[in-house]
């Protein structure tokens, strides 16, 4: 899952970015409100972690403009403003959750996962389709109950496909999920990772729709 982090404090921003990366998220970090808006316009992030006291454009303004455009992506406010009035203002402006600084990184990651789950219409932590189960918290993948070892990128790719069963994801969309800004994207990386996943999960686990992209197999891995 790819997140956008808008935080002006370099120390806090670097800390959150590093912590969330360790939890398996791809994190892009911007330091002011305008940069956040430009990044949101790219439409590649699944969730926005928003600090309120941003220079150039206030966090709440960014949030209101986002909701005004009909952008329904989950937004988690992370701020030092802790009064009830501030929380109410943040939630009323369209935020989905509100975390007050200082906070536990594990809690932040859990809240982000919960928001992502809810935005995908799921209530279960574990993503499951057919015989494949994927746990975003423990980073475990099982096929018919048997654990399968996946690399971080393979895991992220499978998570993206499982998150929207039935949807076809293009190469560009998948690349966006796998790589943050400034990360080198190898030309056939997606194919390489798909190939590896098919080898580990079964050939039918991922279907290719020629010229369009990839989707999770209809009854993936249900071999008799």
């Amino acid at each position, binding site marked *: 899952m790819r997140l956008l982090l808008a935080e002006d*404090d*370099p*120390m*806090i921003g*670097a*800390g*959150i970015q*590093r*912590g969330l990366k*360790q939890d398996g998220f791809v994190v892009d970090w911007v*330091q*002011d409100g305008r940069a956040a808006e430009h990044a949101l316009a790219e439409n590649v992030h699944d969730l926005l972690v928003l600090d309120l006291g941003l*220079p*150039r454009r206030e966090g709440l303004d960014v949030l209101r403009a986002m909701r005004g455009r009909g952008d329904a992506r989950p937004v988690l406010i992370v701020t*030092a*403003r802790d009064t009830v009035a501030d929380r109410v203002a943040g939630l009323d402006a369209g935020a989905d959750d509100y975390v007050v*600084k*200082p*906070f*536990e*990184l594990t809690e932040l990651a859990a809240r982000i996962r919960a928001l992502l789950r809810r935005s995908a219409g799921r209530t279960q932590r574990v993503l499951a389709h057919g015989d494949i189960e994927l746990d975003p918290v423990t980073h475990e993948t099982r096929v018919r109950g048997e654990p399968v070892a996946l690399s971080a990128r393979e895991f992220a790719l499978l998570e993206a496909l499982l998150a929207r069963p039935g949807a076809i994801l293009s190469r560009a969309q998948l690349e966006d999920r796998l790589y943050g800004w400034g990360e080198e994207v190898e030309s056939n990386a997606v194919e390489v990772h798909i190939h590896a996943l098919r080898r580990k999960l079964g050939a039918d686990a991922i279907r290719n729709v020629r010229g369009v992209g990839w989707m999770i197999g209809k009854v993936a891995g249900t071999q008799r």
Partner: protein
Amino acid sequence: MNRTRSIRRELVLWLSAGLLAAIAVAAVATYVRARDEANDIFDYQLTQMAASLTGVPLTGAPPGSTSGAEAIVVQVWDRDGIRLYLSQPRQGLPRHTQPGFDTVATDAGEWRVFSTLAAGRIVQVAQPMSVRRELAAGMALRTIVPLLAVAPFLAVLVWFGIARGLRPLERVAVAVGERSPHALLPLPEAGLPTEVRPLVHALNGLLARLDRALGAQRAFIADAAHELRSPLTAVYLQAQLAERAGNDVERAGALAELRAGLERATHLVEQLLTLAREEPGVNERPFAPVNLTELARHVIGELASIAAARRVDLGMVGSEAPAGDAIVSGDAAGLRAMLSNLVDNAVRYTPAGGRVDVTVQRDRGDAVLQVRDTGPGIPASERTRVFDRFYRVPGIGTAGAPGSGLGLAIVKRIAERHDAVIALGPGLPGAGGEGLGVTVRIPTTQATGTEPERRIAD
């Protein structure tokens, strides 16, 4: 018992004393006047009586029965001095041959004596003066008795009148009692007597100033708490990352970040303390002559290693000026904090390879301190706001941790204490931008040791 002063009691006492004095004066005046009038009347009566006696046979009681007539003594002598008649046996009344009035002192008090010579006889009529005095005293008494009777009622009236007049003060006291540091509403001024209004008006002025000062304090504390949260969040995050670190390299990196975060939090707390110390009215140190040039050299020396670590060329320019060192009257600790903040700011915001020049000059009786750098500078539109505490120019970051946002607020506060003027302008052109030049002009008043009159902050 500790007697407290009471306006009411004092007024009643003074008014009562005045009233009594007035009554006494009235009594004396009445007495004197009545006595004078009684003298005239009784003297006339004596002459009339003497005249009526000149031709009557000397038997029986003398005629006339006016008041005090019973006390009248009549004596008649013939030409040879033989007493022919004595109305009452009285001792000590001398024989008077001289016609006319006389007042005679006898064993039985003073007597008024009238003698007349007619038809070969000397008629002498005498009356004790006490009669007249008693009459006058009676008159005086009749005058003051009603006044004395009314006096207690007057005192009571005054007592209640004052209570009524002072009731607005009690209302003001209740209203003041209702005020608290959280609710410093002005006191109602309507319906107050003119004597009390200036007091209430002054109180309202004080309340308004207190409210503003408290509001500023509250805002400062809220700001400070908010600002402290950022470095603490950074430290907390780094501590968590250090705990999670899978290997020694990661852990060392996280711990280095943690240390940087702690330094930042410490710096912020120190800056907050400096600002609090420079708060007007707090710990004001007396002014003394301060060698600004020497102070600048000292501060540069302190920050030289930090500048070197950031590869910033920090130095002093024009310090060998023939005019000599600039001496100002001021607070050495405050001026040092100001210089330190200015130079530290310049070093902090100047990119590596840049330059920071410090100049101290004397100019037309002022000491002029200049700190110029090759950093990004401050856009003209931001130049007033940068003196607000916790305001940081957007888009201009420091190489390391963000600043406290208090540096220029501290500089401004100290400059105000010294009646100095701060100007922001371009600095030294360099790779980072137009640079920033801060000029502080401190008046060098001749009167050392005395602080110039401070402007009252509105």
